[in-house]
């Protein structure tokens, strides 16, 4: 599997390996956004459960 958009450094500028097209950039970017905000949502759920479990009778 070849992820490099360049084969030499001659004239090379931006070179994001495995993300040399708008589609791949979008996939990685959206993936990172989803992980970031999904983690907060998941963390919030975990917090609520922890408080519920530890609440004194």
């Amino acid at each position: 599997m070849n992820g490099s958009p360049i084969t030499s450094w001659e004239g090379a500028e931006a070179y994001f390996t495995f993300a040399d097209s708008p589609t791949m950039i979008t996939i990685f970017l959206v993936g990172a956004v989803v992980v970031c905000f999904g983690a907060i949502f998941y963390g919030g759920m975990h917090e609520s459960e922890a408080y519920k479990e530890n609440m004194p009778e």
Partner: protein
Amino acid sequence: MEQQIAELTEKLAALEAAQAMSSTVNSEIFYWWCTGLMVIIHAGFLAYEMGASRAKNVLASGIKNILAFAFVIPTFFFFGWWIYLAFPNGFIPVMDSYGAPWDASMGPNLADNATGVFWAAFTLFAATTASIFSGAVIERIRVSSFLILAILLGSVVWILGASWGWHPTGWLTVQLGYHDVGAAGVVHMIAGFFALGVLINLGPRVGKFNEDGSANELCAHNVPFTITGLMLIIVGFFGFLGGCIIYMPGEQWINIYGQPATLSAFAFNTLMGFSGGIIGAWLKTRDPFWMMSGALVGIFCAASGLDVYYPPLAFLLGFFGGIVVPMAAKALEKAGIDDAVGAFPVHGVGGLIGVLGCGLFASGYPNVEDYPPITLYGQAIGAVVMALLGFIPGFVVSYIMKLMGVLRVPDEIQIIGLDKTKVPVKAYPEGGIGSAMPAE
């Protein structure tokens, strides 16, 4: 003869290219190390917050602090950097892809040595802003809600303020001559006032206030750790302030507004403000916590005019702040607001003194282009903008969270302790600190 001239011309061009590349790389290295030093700010905030917590909450406070840093980094990549570049005119963005997360500049690029290190430095400014807020709300805010607020502050609110007042063409400097080279307003005031807005809705820690309104001292479990943390923050601020000046290869340094400046001026005034703050707080309180907080206050009180002040003036501004800020902390407590580490007095009030001080003591200092010079009026308007820009989002969003019941940890859980409730490891497993402490 002609051949010799051609050879010399070729050598000269090669030398010029080598010199230009060397300067570019030097600039890149400068901001790289400023960023590295700024990470020490976060080591300091971590120690400071954990030390200031009671033993039953120490690891939960650490987790919250670490996560603020972690979440501000990607969100500043997603939209923070773009906000800085897009909003110098107010609320209407300048539509340009530079700074957007999909732009060719936002990653490895052999034609761009600058964007990555500038983005990194600004990201650390952002994380610092969020960490300032973090300390104020320890021991009773839900982490998930805190993270949303930290992202709002670190990757949206302060950077919008920076776009307005800490940008070569920000409307505050273009229209009012606003001058704030060390970010007293755009970082410290915004963070302090944001914290105040949240604190009003969050409420105090259980046991902080009695029914008659008098306050109890909820003692930090490790004051030496807190004081060491504060000193680490100050070490890191040398990276922060270094990142506030622009390295111009082959030319004199300029400040963020394009005015000529020197790093030497920053060195004089940072150290003199630092010193004045410690001495002022020492005379006022004799408390090492406030002495080290006073050191920070001293820097913030001089921060707006680090490039222009006579160093003894920076010292006196710091001294004044070192005396006033502990008084502001007392007043805040009397008002029934529990700011666990004094974030609002230190950053909000210290930053306010810094911004207004620049209007009092640097009025008439010229601006670039045909922009207005520094005036007290411009600084005062800038201070109001920074205060509102911090306070309103913090208050409104935390109020919505309060209505939804997701802002505050239940009082029963606060009494048990956050570590016991949700942290899978113990801070002090072999007994001693905290293990036999009665719940407060």
